[in-house]
């Protein structure tokens, strides 16, 4: 069943158009990865989906409702949560406070959920009173993901979660992401480490200069010689 569907999305900043009509979809429980060269508009596509960038024409629907034009807060409420590529934690808030902010919309007692996050990311549990600004890159990324999970989302958008991490840390992050997916959350990923990401993805898209170039299953994209030479570093 289709969970998220973006149809012919056109978006950009000011007078510049970045996305020239991009269509993608994500099914329930799927992992889908978008790869493409720097500046091709991957982050812009994610921002357009979550309402941070206006969708000029085209539409985005989530669970059958058209959410294009909704403010971000309303989109988040429908169970679609997002981890931005950069500045994705509140640096002057503590780890615990960051998680509480992720749960801002919850009216119930979310302490149990914080406990679950600490189980999923034991690194965070050690010093819940630490300021997020003083965390390492890997810990920050974990915190950002945990913050986005606080609302128990149906689907999670992750923009380059492994960027700038050490190989070991990268592995941990990918392991966690897989666990999250196994718990039933659908994932849309943007990744530079295309090989790892495609390896764990059901499907993938290749975005070039604001247009969709290719779409296929993760495995076939990995085995596609053109993709391999252009986007997987040989």
């Amino acid at each position, binding site marked *: 069943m289709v969970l998220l569907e973006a149809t012919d999305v056109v978006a950009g900043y000011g007078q510049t158009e970045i996305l020239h009509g991009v269509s993608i979809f994500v099914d329930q429980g799927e992992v889908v990865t978008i790869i493409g060269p720097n500046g091709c508009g991957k982050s812009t596509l994610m921002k357009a989906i979550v309402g941070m960038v206006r969708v000029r024409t085209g539409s985005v629907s989530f669970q059958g409702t058209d959410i294009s034009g909704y403010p971000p*807060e309303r989109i988040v409420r429908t169970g679609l949560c997002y981890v931005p590529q950069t500045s994705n934690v509140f640096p002057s808030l503590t780890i615990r406070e960051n998680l509480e902010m992720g749960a801002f919309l919850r009216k119930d007692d979310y302490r149990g959920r914080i406990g679950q996050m600490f189980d999923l990311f034991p690194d965070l549990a050690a010093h819940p009173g630490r300021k997020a600004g003083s965390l390492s890159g890997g810990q920050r990324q974990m915190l950002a993901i945990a913050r986005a999970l606080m609302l128990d989302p149906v689907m999670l958008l992750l923009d380059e979660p492994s960027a700038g991490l050490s190989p070991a840390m990268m592995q941990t992050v990918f392991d966690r992401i897989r666990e999250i997916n196994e718990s039933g959350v659908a994932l849309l990923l943007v990744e530079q480490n295309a090989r790892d990401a495609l390896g764990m993805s059901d499907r993938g898209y290749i975005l070039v200069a604001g247009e969709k170039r290719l779409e296929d299953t993760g495995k076939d994209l990995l085995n596609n010689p053109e993709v391999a030479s252009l986007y997987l570093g040989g």
Partner: protein
Amino acid sequence: MGRLVTTIQDTARRIGLAWTPAHTSVAIVVIALAVGFLPFVKMGLVVNGVFLGAIIALGAVGLTLVYGILNFANIAHGDYMTMGAYTTLFIVGYLLPKVGVEGSGLGPFTFGYPLLIALPVAVAAISAGAVVVDMMVYRRLRDRGVNTVVVSMASLGVAIALRGLVQIIWGGDIERYPRETRQVFHLPMDVRVPPDAIFITTVAIILVVALYLVLDRTKMGKAMRATADNPDLALVSGIDTGSVVRWTWVMGAALAATAGILLAVYQAHLLPIMGWKFLIPLFAAVVLGGIGNPYGALVGAFVIGVTSEVSTQWINPSYKPAVAFAIMIGMLLVRPRGIFGGGRS
């Protein structure tokens, strides 16, 4: 000694001041210098500076909250102070006497208990007014995504209009709350403490502690800090940024109005330009503490208050705002992000 330093550092960090060992060494040097200078400084001026600092602090903390969360320099902040002071005048000088509530000289203070009734009412009125102005002016500009300087420009218009309004209603002449002359307390070292100053300081302390509790303990307080940190992330986290903005105005304007009322009590008069004149020390305190950092503004306020009072020992007292301005420029020159480096430059 080492324990003490660690305790200071931990406390500072807890309340959000990025306190480093360098700060400790600078603080020790400053304290040593201050203590060394003390014999040459009139204690009375230092004490006056603390009282002035308490009023600056209330104004500056509100200003820095708005600055940090809404990301613009609110030029009208001083005029919110003026409005607070005059609204109180309206209540104690006109409304309450109509229903027979009058009085001055409560206990050791110059003012009467009607002021204690008027203060919260006036503060609530100014807070509500600030929210209305936001809906009419600033929200529209935010929605349009204009440059923050344009928002500041609009706040200049608001400031001018408010001052005009005060003058239309109350005229441009000097006004006073009903007051009795009161004996000041004489302390050793020629320190004179007017009883009103004790009231002012107490109110300031209560409000600052309340603010700390709100920012540190409540969900809205945390959401305010989160929004100041990263408004975009706040939005995609599902934080209701609309309420955050409203609460920011409520708190910022409440603090400003209180500062205005206390200033009118302290200087024993009201003038339509009282708030505008106060802008320079307010902004100086905000810059010193780092924009958006309420505890930094608190420290900045006392630095500005004490320095500008003590400066009158050597230079003409009417240069006091110039001293505050000079300190601010000096700070911008060496550390534009403020003493604690947390602000934005």
